[in-house]
């Protein structure tokens, strides 16, 4: 119960409003802004999650990973994705850089799945810098069509 006036909450609301305003002015920031922050950003990598009646699909936007470093684990309803964005070769002098925006490093992100999945049948494909994880739903979690009797 927050009955008293909280200046920090006011600041938070103001901050959110400003963010939205900037997003309107520059749509690229809204969509791609967090990618440019690189692996060190709080919600890296970005994900799209969708479902149909059989599967849950998780698309992870993560270009330039070491394929050997990608780890996908499922425990109950928790999906954990870890990996490493490969750094450039290290013999480049810092003063030789004109632009340095991509970033590199290790990341971990966990996601709570909406339904129970068959952990043994989960597949993951890494193609063109996008990781696609397909998680088949457990039979109990699939929707059942119920016939309607008409009298």
């Amino acid at each position, binding site marked *: 119960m927050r009955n008293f006036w909280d200046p920090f909450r006011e600041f938070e609301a103001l901050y959110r409003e400003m963010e939205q305003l900037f997003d309107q002015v520059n749509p690229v920031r809204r969509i791609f802004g967090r990618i440019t922050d690189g692996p060190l950003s709080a919600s890296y990598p970005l994900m*799209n999650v969708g*479902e149909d009646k059989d599967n849950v699909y998780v698309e992870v936007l993560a270009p*330039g990973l070491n394929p050997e470093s990608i780890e996908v684990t499922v425990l109950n309803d928790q999906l954990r994705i870890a990996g490493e964005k490969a750094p450039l070769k290290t013999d480049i002098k810092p003063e030789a*850089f004109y*632009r340095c925006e991509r970033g590199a490093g290790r990341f971990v992100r966990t996601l709570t799945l909406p339904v129970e999945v068959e952990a043994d049948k989960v597949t993951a494909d890494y193609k063109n810098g*996008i990781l696609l994880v397909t998680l088949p739903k457990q039979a109990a979690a699939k929707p059942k069509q119920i016939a309607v009797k008409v009298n």
Partner: protein
Amino acid sequence: MKNSNLPTKYEKQAVAAQEKTRTLTPPVDIFDAGDALVVVADLPGVDQEHIDINIEKNVLTLKAEPSTRVSEPNLLHEFVLHPFYRQFQLGELVDQDKVRAELRYGVLTVYLPKVAEKQPKKIDVKVG
């Protein structure tokens, strides 16, 4: 109502047109490797056939069309892939015939070899 600030239908059309031509700016690393400039760009979801690299009047243009599309993200929607577009003004003269590029795991690397500097030519004077 002459000085109304309300958006007119023409402005709506303009927004729609903007939506259609929306592009993403890919993050890049650019560095000098001595004999060449190297541009590294993150282009997730792009096939090799859908990349267009062009150099004209010392301006490097990268265009790419992402194609990966799996399912409708009806639970969580954090990214949208639009065509990628970015231009760079090149300071050094680039040998256009020797430019090469490779795409690996959604990362494009473009090598732009510099034109070898012309050495002053020495002319022998024959005294006859």
